[in-house]
């Protein structure tokens, strides 16, 4: 863990593993969460609008000043997150959809059965 005396920028880059990840690393971590949730627990995926503001020491918190989507995934005490830029949204959302649809197979598949079949005249 980084010591409190380090400047803000170093603190940010020191967070590895759990925490703020790249988009691809986040998707990989989410896959792991999905395989772990099969045994027990609740998986929380949160989406929020993130508008970067300058940090305390004047160090910018992110590369651009454009609004991004903050995505978090939490299973028990293990939390990961990532920032998705507008230009990456399509790709990220596509991967996310694939992951979710592929892994959320515990849900019931409801088959609509017509109990009364009307005879054709």
């Amino acid at each position: 863990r980084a010591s409190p005396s380090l400047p803000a920028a170093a603190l940010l880059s020191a967070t590895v593993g759990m925490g703020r990840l790249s988009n691809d690393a986040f998707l990989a971590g989410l896959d792991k969460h999905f395989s772990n949730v099969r045994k027990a627990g609740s998986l929380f995926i949160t989406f929020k609008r993130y508008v970067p503001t300058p940090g305390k020491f004047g160090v910018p918190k992110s590369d651009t000043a454009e609004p991004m989507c903050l995505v978090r995934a939490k299973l028990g005490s293990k939390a990961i997150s990532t920032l998705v830029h507008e230009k990456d949204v399509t790709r990220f959302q596509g991967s996310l959809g694939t992951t979710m649809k592929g892994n959320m197979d515990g849900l019931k598949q409801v088959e609509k059965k017509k109990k009364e079949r009307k005879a054709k005249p």
Partner: protein
Amino acid sequence: MVYISNLESFVEAGQQLFISSPGKTRYLVKYRHVDAKLVLKVTDDKVCLKYKTDRQDDLKRIDRLNAFFMRLMCAETVTSETAQAIEALIQEEDMMQVAPKAAAASVAHSGGKKKKK
């Protein structure tokens, strides 16, 4: 906690809530494989909207909702116009997956709208 029974009603209410307070609203998905339950929540910490399901069929609509929220969250300004533009874009993409030839023709016709600055 307000559970909305109809997915479409939840989607519409959730989208409206986000447009009204984009800075405070968050969209959450809770999945429990053990109980086969999926819960969606949209809240700005004043109003809370929830939807729960155990059906696989809802995933397709939820996937579209994810796309909508992610894109709107990244947009420069969050307004009804931006939201409508994004909805249109998502519908076009949906059509592309279902019927590529027909959709390609309509996309070429509309000229591909981009967000306003």
